[in-house]
């Protein structure tokens, strides 16, 4: 049995075992309908944005035309410029930072996250020979400021009570 005979036998066996051998298949109308369905499903987005490059090109051309025309006419020099609607400007008040005494530039802090905790002011200590900047209320008599060098010590007791102790080096006896 040569090879050609074997192939013909195999082909015949497959045709005999084909369960759809007697099926007439799709009609011409059904084939057209299926083709329409497939093609429309694929080409829909292309159809939606198909005209976009054309429109963008037209828009660019019009933009260039308008810009050229406006420049040629000197329109930029005659048109009134608009002021910005709103901007964060420093108010006309002499500003200063929160925890300092010396006047300084305004501190504008922008937070895009949760604002950070402020600088701890609990243990802030003044320099020893600093001039007092505390309130001066009405006093019955003149109060002379002692020209003595003072030091402050801040500490906490084991029980948690905080103590501020002022040491004066050159205390005068009246």
């Amino acid at each position: 049995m040569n090879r050609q005979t074997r192939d013909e036998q195999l082909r015949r066996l497959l045709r005999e075992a084909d369960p759809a051998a007697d099926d007439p298949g799709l009609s011409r109308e059904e084939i057209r309908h299926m083709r329409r369905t497939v093609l429309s499903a694929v080409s829909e987005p292309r159809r939606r944005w198909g005209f976009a490059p054309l429109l963008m090109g037209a828009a660019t051309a019009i933009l260039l035309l308008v810009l050229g025309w406006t420049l040629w006419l000197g329109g930029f020099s005659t048109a009134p410029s608009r002021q910005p609607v709103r901007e964060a400007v420093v108010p006309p008040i002499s500003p200063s930072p929160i925890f300092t005494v010396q006047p300084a530039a305004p501190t504008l802090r922008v937070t895009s996250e949760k604002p950070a905790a402020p600088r701890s002011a609990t243990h802030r200590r003044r320099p020893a020979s600093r001039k007092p900047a505390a309130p001066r209320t009405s006093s019955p008599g003149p109060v002379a400021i002692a020209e003595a060098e003072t030091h402050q010590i801040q500490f906490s007791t084991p029980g948690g009570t905080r103590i501020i102790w002022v040491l004066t080096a050159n205390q005068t006896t009246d």
Partner: protein
Amino acid sequence: MKTSCVRPLTLALLLLPASLAAAPQEQPAASPNSVRYEIRYMDMHAAEVLAWDQCIQKARCRVAALTVNDSKVKGFLEVLAEPAVHEKIARALAKEDATPRTQRFQLLLMAASEKAGGASSDVPANAQKALADLKGFLPFKSYELLDTAWVSATQDRNADAHMVGRKGQNFRIAMRFRNVGSPADHSLFVDAFQLAVEPYATEPAGPDGKPDHHPGRELIDTTFGLKEGETLVVGTSKVDGVDEALVVLLTAVPAS
């Protein structure tokens, strides 16, 4: 004539991309806008946190604080947020920043001595613990209560108290505080605390019969932070050559 041609073309140019983009997308939520809020009494950081807490979508919010040195205004908050968030911030600030904070302080002026003496039984109960801590920590052997005072102070305003010491000495305590805590946290910062002895005269000691005049002077000038209900000890040693120390127990009395 020329401008009448430019305007329609510009309008067409502006409308063209808008008509292209409008069809497939939904209209977004209200766009954020920037509003400046005036802060009068609150601590700026606390106001900043309060505004930030009102933002639901943190990525769409921006809060900037600007501190100014003015007696009427503490600063400004520049907030970029959606209109609904702005409404919440305005409501919260109207509630929290309406009135200045008032705080009552209890002041106890005490003389601490290295000589043994009787225990001071007049110290109020709220300061007993601080006094007990002081006794265990400082080398003084006795503490005597000289005078007490209550001060009701308003934030950022000066307040003072006059107290009586030994030998006809009068002391003046001047203080001022600012509100640094959030509405939940009642912390404050005493940015001026001064204890000064006022001018006084003592009985004549010499044969000429003239009284000795003593000029007033400042003994303590300091600043510190304080929490509501906390008792802080401020003291100084060697007052006018006397072997005594002057101690002030300051308590920020909680609002009942």
